[in-house]
């Protein structure tokens, strides 16, 4: 086999092996940064090559250690996974290219090689989630990326970074553990951890209590990880007190990856199974859906994030009702994916803009930034368009999102849920 056949695993292995090497590199000047950027660039190139292959010849399958798939761990990269890979590796590369001077101002030089080593581990974990087709593997990669993220956030310049990290750690671990419980129930009922295999086997058991419990636990766990609306308490502080380049990287892709796993479970595993069980047999629905994603992305059905969130949030109970498989749903799902991508760009760019301002003025508080437009006119246009795009949409959609969610909750009569807010 040539190296090209091993691309799917290389995107994980390159940062994984580079991380301990980087940790051993003496923390002098920009050397750790240069290595991390180089590795990140390499990973990005691998991701681009993978995407080219996927667009060329469809979903890539790879068997780890040569074990055939239901027994060993399999990787499967469809168009959606390839897009996630591009977002993750691209965000890492851009944040690193943008970040060195901001990082120098916030993190002491003696800690930088360890911080960049954690950065590569986070990159490895996130990329791993995108490529793997194994439910337990997702858990392990999720924890690799989370642990590395905790370390990076805790490296922030203020001491509040520590308490923010603790909150992040608790929420992240509880989320991951809920996910693990869900996977346990699914494994109990299907005897497999491979997602494709699981979707097929779930058809026979789709409405048994353990499977319903599993979808609840997985939804809850991933919602915590993705900081969906009522479970987002850990997020603002974690991003605010993290070193700015870290915030750029994590804001752009780490919650997106949790949403990506949720989408895979929602539509490709549990949904495909329930749809088939209801008698709307759609042979190969999962594969077909994956195949269409790439084509549909180009048409750009841009839908709002609130809807995405609302749908995901009520996705669990909704699946139990026959209303689940409406034609509009697929369109919404495409829009959601397009929006994930756009949102990653917007959010990453916004954090960069704020970071640039903070670097120039030494503060990111709005009071201190008053009048900044006159002093640093050159930075202003860079900030403004994205600000307009993100702010106008975000502010009014965030409001609508919450209204939509609360209405959904009221409609379902979940008063207990309302009390939590």
């Amino acid at each position, binding site marked *: 086999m040539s190296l090209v056949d091993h691309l799917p695993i290389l995107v994980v292995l390159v940062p994984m092996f580079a991380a301990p090497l980087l940790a051993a590199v003496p923390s002098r000047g920009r050397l750790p940064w240069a290595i991390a950027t180089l590795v990140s660039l390499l990973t990005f190139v691998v991701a681009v090559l993978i995407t080219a292959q996927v667009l060329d010849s469809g979903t890539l399958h790879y068997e780890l250690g040569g074990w055939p798939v239901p027994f060993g761990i399999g990787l499967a990269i469809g168009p959606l996974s390839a897009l996630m890979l591009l977002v993750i590796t691209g965000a890492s590369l851009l944040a690193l290219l943008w970040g060195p001077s901001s990082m120098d101002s916030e993190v002491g030089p003696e800690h930088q090689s360890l911080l960049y080593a954690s950065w590569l581990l986070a990159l490895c974990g996130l990329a791993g989630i995108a490529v793997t087709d194994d439910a337990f593997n997702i858990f*392990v990669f999720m924890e690799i990326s989370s*642990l590395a993220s905790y370390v990076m956030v*805790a490296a922030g310049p203020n001491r509040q970074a*520590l*308490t923010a990290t*603790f909150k992040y750690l*608790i929420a992240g671990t*509880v989320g991951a553990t809920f996910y693990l419980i869900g996977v*346990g129930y699914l*494994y109990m009922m299907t005897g497999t951890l491979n997602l494709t295999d699981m979707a097929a086997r779930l058809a026979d058991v789709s409405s048994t209590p353990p499977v319903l419990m599993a979808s609840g636990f997985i939804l809850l766990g991933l919602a915590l990880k993705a900081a969906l609306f009522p479970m987002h308490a850990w997020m603002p502080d974690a991003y605010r007190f993290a070193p700015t380049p870290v915030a750029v990287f994590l804001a752009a892709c780490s919650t997106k990856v949790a949403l990506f796993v949720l989408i895979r479970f929602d539509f490709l595993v549990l949904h495909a199974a329930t749809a088939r069980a209801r008698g709307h047999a759609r042979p190969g629905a999962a594969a077909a859906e994956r195949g269409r994603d790439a084509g549909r992305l180009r048409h750009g059905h841009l839908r709002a994030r609130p809807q995405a969130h609302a749908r995901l949030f009520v996705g669990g109970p909704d699946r139990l009702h026959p209303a689940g498989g409406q034609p509009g749903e697929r369109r919404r799902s495409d829009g959601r994916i397009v929006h994930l991508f756009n949102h990653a760009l917007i959010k990453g760019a916004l954090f960069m803009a704020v970071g640039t301002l903070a670097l120039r003025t030494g503060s990111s508080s709005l009071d201190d930034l008053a009048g900044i437009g006159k002093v640093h006119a050159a930075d202003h246009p860079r900030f403004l368009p994205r600000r307009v795009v993100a702010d106008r949409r975000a502010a009014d959609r965030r409001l609508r999102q919450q209204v939509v969610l609360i209405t959904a909750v009221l409609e379902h009569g979940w008063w207990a849920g309302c009390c939590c807010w």
Partner: protein
Amino acid sequence: MTFLGLYYYWVYVFVLVVGLYAVLVKGNYVKRMIGLGIFQGAVFLLFITMDKVEGGTGPIFVTPPEPGDLFANPLPQVLILTAIVVGISVTALGLALSIRIKEEYGTIEEAETAEMDRQA
């Protein structure tokens, strides 16, 4: 009786909720880490319980097993081995964070650190 026969699952649910309670309610960082440990321990119990086959032995054989031999499913045990390692890493990191918080704030009570953050 099935209801009581599944007592392992009752224990799992009980331990899970005890752990979750400590994580959510306690205000001391170390106690919350202990709660997190209990919470994760419950999930380990769930996996270890599900691999048991009635009348089966442990999945260790000196000679290759004959068809018809009953033994526990080794896969969940391997998964939990991995999950334990993950759990230990989380605990280690959480306790290290508590030490750093103690160094910076002089306390590991969440109410007090939150108060100091508000004043800052």
